[in-house]
């Protein structure tokens, strides 16, 4: 019986802790930023895509075939969406040599920046005190980004990162077992998707859509299309589409 109480108390403690996670925000805008349709040139950076499996223990095992499939499917879906964003979107022509390495490093910096926004801005309980003032949403990759080969002449750069860890059979069985027998929540799979718009004059992040649990199986064309539509949901300057289903209101960080 004593053990029973312990487990119950532990479960209660877990529930209490899980609550703040539910209040996570997913979209942020730099205060005062607006983008009218047909006024800007946006350069679409090559998306950073990684797909793999999640082992029973939770570790990530990259899968080259899945990553190739996702690259092809997401590439096609992005190309299709590109024309419907309200502004001129051009694909970044990947530079050669050192320029290619720098472009890759900038994409990695964008991913780290988006991770930081999720951890220290989108979770209100964990927000950094200097980021709490007013409607502050001040994040940047630095104005030096304007020197990157291939972005000259554009006003904004659109960065996209996706990372998917599909739960292995073992992981899924563990999830079912843990939920049914031990009453513990074990996550199966990671499906993170970040899309962010960088002002090329300042390097400031003016819009970010970032979620660690996105929908759409990127290994299939249909899933990739769904993922891209989620990534670009609420994209600044995008003409409003007729909603298929009433969408739940999105919480905005800049408020």
């Amino acid at each position, binding site marked *: 019986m*004593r053990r029973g*109480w*312990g487990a*119950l*108390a*532990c479960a*209660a*403690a*877990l529930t*209490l*802790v899980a609550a*703040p*996670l539910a209040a996570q925000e997913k979209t942020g805008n730099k205060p005062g930023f607006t983008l009218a349709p047909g006024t800007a040139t946006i350069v679409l950076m090559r998306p950073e895509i990684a797909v793999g499996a999640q082992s029973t223990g939770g570790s*990530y095992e990259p899968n080259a075939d899945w990553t190739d499939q996702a690259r092809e499917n997401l590439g096609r879906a992005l190309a299709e969406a590109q024309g419907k964003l309200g502004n001129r979107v051009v694909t970044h022509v990947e530079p050669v040599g050192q320029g290619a390495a720098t472009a*890759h*490093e*900038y994409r*990695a*910096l964008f*991913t*780290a*920046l988006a*991770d*930081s926004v999720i*951890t*220290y801005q989108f*979770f209100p*309980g*964990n*927000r*950094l*005190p*200097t*980021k709490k003032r007013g409607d502050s949403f001040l*994040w*940047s*990759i*630095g104005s*030096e*980004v304007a020197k990157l080969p291939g972005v000259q002449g554009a006003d904004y750069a659109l960065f996209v990162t996706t990372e998917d860890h599909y739960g292995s059979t073992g992981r899924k069985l563990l999830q079912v077992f843990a939920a049914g027998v031990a009453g513990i929540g074990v996550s199966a799979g990671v499906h993170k998707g970040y899309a962010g718009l960088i002002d090329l004059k300042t*390097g400031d992040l003016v819009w970010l859509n970032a979620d660690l649990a996105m929908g759409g199986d990127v290994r299939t064309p249909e899933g990739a299309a769904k993922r891209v539509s989620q990534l670009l949901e609420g994209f600044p300057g995008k003409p409003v589409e007729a909603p298929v289903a009433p969408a739940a209101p999105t919480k905005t960080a800049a408020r």
Partner: protein
Amino acid sequence: MKGLRIAAIGLALVAAPVLAGNKLIPAGQPVAVAKSVLTVTPSVEWNKLGARPGRNSETWTFDGDALNDLTFYGGIEPEQTLFREVSKRTKPLPRVKATMLVTDIPTLVENSYRIALDTPLFTVEGMEPMAFAGKPGIRFTYSFTRPNEDLPRKGEGRGAITGGKLYLITFEAPRLHYFDAGVAAFRQVANSAKL
């Protein structure tokens, strides 16, 4: 009663990363850091993270520890580690030694990072003698990359050993933009250190 205790432990274990409040460090006021006698006076505002990398350390940041990370190690005693052990049995962290010299500090940092971050990509770029908090000390620079991330970072450290204890401040950030943007604020904090 036991149930309550288990609940409290469970809560503490799980809640630490989420509920550990981040605090504002105001500019211009002396502040004791890393639960020690080490005091610094920052000239700009910082955020102190609720999560600590080890028992006698604390981290300050502007934009999150992945973008700019200033960590204080306040009086690490002999036979203690810089960080919490990741796997004490299979990969024990190096320990501070009573016989350590200041020139051993960069090696201690290097070997601790290689284990804690599980990365082979760590290089000490340079070192030179420089007083720290009025004691004979060292300044060193380094670079490293975390595994599963193609984002090279640069770091700079200032440290001294006094009374057998290690006092150390490090700053690290991605070499693109963030290191250069934050290193002057770090140097100001390091120069203001008092023991």
